[in-house]
C-alpha cells in the first residue's frame, strides 16, 4: 500500500515531513481488517470494513456472519440492542439496506418490521438504495468549507460525470456531501467507503479516483 501516489491517505498533515505510508501510520498489525466472524465478542459489533465488492443478494446471518451476530447478541441485556450492528452487517454484505434486509433483521431479532424500518431510516449511514463501488462522502461542513470543500465536491462530480447522489455510468462512484467527519484540522476530509482521505485538494481528486479504480478488491 505504500505506493499510494498521493499524500497521506487517512492521515493528517500535508507537509512533506509527514509523508508516511499507510502501514507506518496505522501500524502493520492494524492494516487489513477484522475477521468476518468478528473476532472476540467485545468487538464483534464493529464493522470490519465496507467492501468495495458488494453482493446485493448475499446471504444474511449465515455461516461466519451468523457467528458474528450471536457474539453481538451475547454482549447486551436485550436482543433489540443488536439492531444497529445487525443492520450494519446487512450493509457490509449487500452494500445497502433494502426493505427486504430490514425484514430479515426484524425476523432474526424478533422485532416488528415497522419498528426496524423506523430505526433504520433514522440513521444516515445505512444506504437505503444501492450505491457505487466507491461511496465518496465529501465533508462540506464549516472547517472543510473554510478550506474550499465545495471545490472538492465539484472536482469529484466533474471527474465522475455525475450529480450529487447519482452513481457514475461505470458503477464505480457515488458522490455525496457529508457532515463533519471529525477530521477538521486536516481539510478537506473525504470518506471513501471505510477510509478517510485527508487534506484533499481538487487537484488530487483525479489521482485518488484513478487509484481507487486500480486497487485490488
Amino acid at each position, binding site marked *: 500500500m505504500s505506493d499510494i501516489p498521493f499524500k497521506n491517505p487517512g492521515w493528517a498533515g500535508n507537509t512533506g515531513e509527514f509523508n508516511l505510508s499507510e502501514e507506518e501510520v496505522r501500524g502493520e498489525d*492494524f492494516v487489513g481488517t477484522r475477521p468476518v466472524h468478528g473476532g472476540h465478542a*467485545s*468487538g464483534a459489533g464493529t*464493522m470490519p470494513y465496507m467492501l468495495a465488492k458488494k453482493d446485493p443478494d448475499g446471504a444474511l446471518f449465515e455461516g461466519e456472519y451468523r457467528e458474528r451476530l450471536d457474539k453481538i447478541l451475547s454482549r447486551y441485556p436485550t436482543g433489540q*440492542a443488536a439492531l444497529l450492528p445487525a443492520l450494519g452487517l446487512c450493509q457490509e454484505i449487500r452494500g445497502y439496506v433494502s426493505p427486504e434486509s430490514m425484514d430479515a433483521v426484524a425476523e432474526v431479532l424478533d422485532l416488528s418490521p415497522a419498528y426496524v424500518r423506523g*430505526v433504520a431510516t*433514522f440513521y444516515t449511514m445505512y444506504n437505503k438504495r444501492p450505491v457505487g463501488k466507491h461511496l465518496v462522502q465529501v465533508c462540506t461542513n*464549516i472547517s472543510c468549507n*473554510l478550506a474550499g470543500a465545495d471545490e472538492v465536491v465539484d472536482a469529484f462530480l466533474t471527474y465522475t460525470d455525475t450529480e450529487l447522489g447519482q452513481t457514475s455510468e461505470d458503477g464505480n462512484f457515488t458522490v455525496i456531501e457529508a*457532515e463533519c467527519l471529525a477530521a477538521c484540522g486536516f481539510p478537506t476530509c473525504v470518506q471513501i467507503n471505510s477510509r478517510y482521505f485527508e487534506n484533499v485538494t481538487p487537484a488530487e481528486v483525479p489521482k485518488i479516483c484513478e487509484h481507487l479504480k486500480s486497487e485490488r478488491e
Partner: protein
Amino acid sequence: MAYPYVSDHEVRVLSKHFGDPSHRRIGTYVERGGYGAVKKAFEMGPAQVIDEVKGSGLRGRGGAGFPTGVKWSFMPKDSGKPHYLLCNADESEPGTFKDRELIRWNPHQLIEGCLIGAYAIGAKHAYIYCRGEFFEANSILARAVEDAYEQGYAGKDILGSGNDIEITVHQGAGAYICGEETGLMNSLEGRRGQPRVKPPFPAAVGAFGMPSTINNVETLAAVKHIVDNGGDWYRQFGTEKSPGTKLFCVSGHVNKPGNYELPLGFPLIKLIEEVCGGIRDGNALKAVIPGGSSVPIINAEESSRCNLDYEGCEEVGTMLGCASVIVMDDKTDIVKQVRRMVDFYAHESCGQCTPCREGSSWTAQILKRIEYGRGTEEDLNTLMEMTQQMVGTTICVLSDSVAAPVQSSIEKFREDYLSLIRRDEKVGAA
C-alpha cells in the same frame, strides 16, 4: 516521530504518543507503565477513586464541563441493579477532531480510563459508543480491547483482583444527535437516537433502564493519568476552576491546524499566533468559534482578550464547549458559514420538538435567501425572534445550538448581512 504539528507550549499528557503507531500494541503500552492505574485504582477502592477525581477538578470534556468526580458520585451506592458506564465516542460536533485521534493513537489509554470509571461507579459493563464513520478507529479500538481481554486486563477477575468488567465497542450509524447523552442511550438500546426528557437523570434511569454514567473519551483518558499521578498533580496545570490540560482542535484559516494539548486558560490569541503559526496568507483575523459550531462566534477584539478555559470563554460571551477552535480570516463569508452550520442542525434535528424541527429548517431557508441576495433587513429581525423561540423550549439543547451562531453573527457581523441584503441598492433601489 512528529505528530503533524507540535509546539513548545504544549503539555503532552494525553497526546504524548500521538504519531507513534507502536504505542497501540499492548506490549509497548504495558512496558511504558500502562495499566498501572487500573491496579492502583483497585487498591484504592471506588470511594477513594471518586475522591481523587473530584480533587483533581477534572471537568467533562464532552462540552458541558460538568465536574466528573461529582457526576460519578451521583450513582447510587447499593441499588442492587446493574450499572453501566458509557463512553461517548460519537464525536461529531463540527470543528472537533480529538476523540478520533485519542482512539487511533492511544486506544489502551481510553480502555484503562473506562475500566477505572466503571470500577468507580460499580459498573460491570462499559460500552464505548464509537461513531459509525470511524471504521479505522473502531478496528483499532476493537483490536486493543481484544488484546486487553487476552492479557487479563478486561473481563472476569481482572488481574486476579476479583473485579469483573466487560467492555464492548459499539459502532453507531451516523446521527449527530446520538452524541447527546440520552440519545446515545436510546441508540445503544437499538432505538432511534432521540433524546429523552430529563429527569429522570441517567444516574437513576439510564441505559437499559439502569443507573448509568456517560463520559467523553477525553475525560476518561484523563482519569487514567489522574489515578496514576494524583489529583494534585493534575491541578498543577490549568486554572483554579478549570484545571488540567485540554486538547484544542484548531481548524480553519491558520497556518498549522491540528490538535494541541495545552493547559486550560491558555490565551486564544497566543494559540493562533504562536502555536498555530498565525493566520494563513498573512490575512487578518475576523472571527473565532472557540468551542465547536454550537457556541457563539466572537470577533477579533473579543478573541484578543479571551482565555481558553470555561470561565474565560464565558467572559467574552461564548463557551469553551469541546475546545474546537475554528478560526476565520477577513476573507470569510460569515453568512455562508453560518448558513452551512444551520443546514447541519436542520439535517441533524431528531424531529421530536417542533421549535427545533421547524425552526432549524426555516432558519436555514431565510439564511439561504440572504446569502443569495434576496433577503431584507426585516429578515434579520425574524431570524433573531425565531431563534429566540428555539432557546430553552425543547427536550435537548441542539435547538439552542442553532440560536448561538445565528444570533451572535447577526450581532457582531451585521454589516456582512447588510451588504448582502443591500447588494442591489447600489443600483438605486430604496
